[in-house]
C-alpha cells in the first residue's frame, strides 16, 4: 500500500509543479475542513456508537449481564462464532489462491475473474440470500431434483433423500450465505498489494532452487502477511455482522438458526430494548476491536516498510 501511495506522489508531482501546495492553504481553511470532518464523524459514527452503550446500560449492569445469560442469546453468539470460524478460513484460502493466480500469472479471462470476485460487493445481501433459497429450497433446483420422477443419476437422488441434508434454514445455509457476502474481502486486500510487489522476489527464489511451496511460505507469505491479516479482520467483522443475506436463509428459529444480528432484531421487536442493545454492544465492541487491530496493523506495516 505504501508503494502505491508513493507512486501517486510521483504521478502528481510534475503535473502541478508545486508538490507542497496542499499545505499552503490558509490555516482558516485547514481548520474549518478539519472541523467539518470531525463534526461529521461525531454525528454519524461516535454518537450512534455511544447511544448503543448508553441504551445497553440504561437499566443497570444486572439487566445488561442478564441479556447474555439467556440461552437464546448464547445460542446466537455460538452460531455467529461458528459461522465466522468456517467462513473466514474458507475465504482466506480462496483469497490467497485468487490473488496469487491473478497477480503472478498471465492468462485469458483474468479480468472476468477479477469482476466475479467483486460481484458479492455489487449484489444486495438480500439477493445473495435468495440465491441460496433458489438453489437449495424445496421449490428450488435441489428440491426439483429431489422430487423429480425420472431424475438424472437416480442413485444420487436416492442417496440425497436418505441423507436428508438440511442446507437452507440451518447452519450450512447461513455459512454459505456468509461466505458469499464476505468473499471479496481477503482477495481485494491482497490483489493490489501483490500487484505492487511484482514477481521479482519469486523469480529470484525459483532461480535459487526453491520449489513452489518454499517460494510461497518463505517469500510470498512474509511479504503479504500484514495485508492478509487486515483482510481477515475486515472479513471477520462482516461475517459476524451480516444481517440481510443471513436473514433470508435463517428461518428465524430461536436457539437454533438465529445469529447475533437476528437475535438483536427479535429482542427489539419483543420490547426487550435493554437486552437488544446489550447484544448490540457486543457487536459494537467487535467493531472497535477491529478498528484497533486495523490501526495496529497499519502502524506495524508502516514501520516495516520504513
Amino acid at each position, binding site marked *: 500500500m505504501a508503494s502505491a501511495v508513493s507512486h501517486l506522489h510521483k504521478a502528481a508531482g510534475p503535473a502541478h509543479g508545486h508538490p507542497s501546495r496542499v499545505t499552503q492553504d490558509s490555516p482558516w481553511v485547514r481548520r474549518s475542513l478539519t472541523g467539518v470532518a470531525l463534526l461529521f464523524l461525531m454525528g454519524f459514527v461516535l454518537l450512534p456508537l455511544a447511544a448503543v452503550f448508553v441504551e445497553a446500560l440504561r437499566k443497570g449492569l444486572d439487566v445488561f449481564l442478564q441479556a447474555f445469560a439467556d440461552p437464546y442469546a448464547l445460542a446466537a453468539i455460538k452460531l455467529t462464532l461458528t459461522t465466522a470460524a468456517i467462513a473466514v478460513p474458507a475465504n482466506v484460502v480462496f483469497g490467497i489462491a485468487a490473488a496469487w493466480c491473478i497477480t503472478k500469472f498471465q492468462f485469458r479471462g483474468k479480468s472476468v475473474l477479477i469482476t466475479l470476485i467483486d460481484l458479492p460487493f455489487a449484489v444486495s445481501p438480500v439477493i445473495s440470500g435468495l440465491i441460496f*433459497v433458489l438453489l*437449495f*429450497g*424445496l*421449490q*428450488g433446483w435441489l*428440491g426439483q431434483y429431489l422430487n423429480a420422477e425420472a431424475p438424472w443419476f437416480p442413485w444420487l437422488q436416492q442417496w440425497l433423500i436418505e441423507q*436428508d441434508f*438440511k442446507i*437452507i*434454514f440451518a447452519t450450512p445455509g447461513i455459512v454459505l450465505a456468509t461466505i458469499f457476502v464476505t468473499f471479496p474481502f481477503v482477495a481485494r486486500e491482497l490483489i493490489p498489494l501483490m500487484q505492487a510487489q511484482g514477481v521479482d522476489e519469486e523469480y529470484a527464489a525459483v532461480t535459487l532452487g526453491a520449489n513452489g511451496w518454499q517460494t510461497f511460505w518463505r517469500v510470498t507469505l512474509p511479504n503479504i502477511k500484514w495485508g492478509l491479516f487486515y483482510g481477515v479482520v475486515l472479513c471477520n467483522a462482516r461475517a459476524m455482522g451480516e444481517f440481510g443475506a443471513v436473514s433470508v436463509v435463517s*428461518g*428465524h*428459529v*430461536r*436457539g*437454533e438458526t438465529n445469529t447475533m444480528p437476528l437475535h438483536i432484531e*427479535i429482542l*427489539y*421487536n*419483543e*420490547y426487550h*430494548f435493554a437486552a437488544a442493545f446489550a447484544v448490540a454492544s457486543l457487536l459494537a465492541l467487535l467493531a472497535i476491536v477491529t478498528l484497533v487491530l486495523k490501526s495496529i496493523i497499519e502502524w506495524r506495516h508502516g514501520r516495516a516498510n520504513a
Partner: protein
Amino acid sequence: MKLKSLLSALLAVVAVSGAAAKDIELLNVSYDPTRELYVEYNAAFAKYWKAKTGDTVTVKQSHGGSGKQARSVIDGLRADVVTLALSGDIDPLHQVARLIPADWQARLPNNSAPYTSTIVFLVRKGNPKQIKDWDDLAKPGVSVITPNPKTSGGARWNYLAAWEFAKRKYGSDDQAKDFVAKVYRNVPVLDSGARGSTTTFVQRGIGDVFISWENEAYLAIKEFGADKFELVTPALSILAEPPVSVVDKVAKKKGTAEVAKAYLEYLYSEEAQDIIGKNFYRPTDPKAAAKYAGQFSKLELFTIADAFGGWAKAQKVHFDDGGTFDQIYLKK
C-alpha cells in the same frame, strides 16, 4: 462377526432409549404477534405432555410476517406445525408444496382456529385526531400505520375490514375501493410484519393511528402504559380466525406426527384457552370466553366467508399481483 455384534448392540441401545422417556423437538412456525402467547403455551404443553407420556417436548419458535413464514415452510423450513394469521397463508402449503392435505382446515374444531381476534385502532393518549371509526382514517392529515398486505397476514385483515366497512356504508365495491385508496394514501410506512408496524407506531412515534390486531394493541398498552396509548374499537370489524395445522409431510418424516397433533389439540383445552384469554386473544371455548368477556369491547363482527366468500377468493381479488391493492397502491 464383529460388525454383527456391533449392530446388535446398537439395536439394543435404540430399543432401550425407545422405551425410556424421549426428548422430542417441535418447530412451531407462527406469525408476528403470537410470540408471547406461544412462549406461555409451550411451557404449559410441555408440562401436560410430560405428565401424560413422560416425554420431554421442547417447542422451538419462529416468528415473522405470516405470508413470509408460509413461504419459508414451502421453501423447506421444517415446521412440524404452522400457526399462521389466516387460512389463505396455509392453503399454499397444499397448493404449491403438497405438504398438507386439501381438507386441512376441517381437521380441528372451529375451522382449525383455536382463538379469534379482531382489528381495532390504537391511538395516542387523548386521541388528538379524534379517531372513532373507519371513516376517520380516510380524512386528510391523518397518518395511518398498517403493515404491507403482501407480506403480513394482519395487514390483509385490516384491508378487508376497511373495505367491508366502506362497502356497507357507501353501497358498492367501487366506492369501497376509493375509500381504501384514500386510507392507504395516509400510510407513510408499510412494514413487512405486524410487529414491525407496532414498533414504528409505538417506539418510533410515527403516525396518528395504528390499525392493529386487538391482542397486539392490548400488549402495546400493557408494555408501554395506559398513559401513552388508547384503544379505539370501531363499530364494525372483521372476525379474524387465525388457523393452525400440522405440516403432515414434515412431521411424518421427523416422526413427530403424534405430538404435533396433540400440541394443536391441546390449544382447545381449558388451560390453553385461559392462556389465550390472558394474552388478549378471544378464546373460542364458551367458558373461557365468558371469563374474559369483560376484557374486550363489544362490536359487530363479520366473517371473511360471509363478506368476501372465503380467503381464496379474497386473496385473488385483492392481494394477488394486479389485485385491488396493487391497483390502488401502484397508482399512488
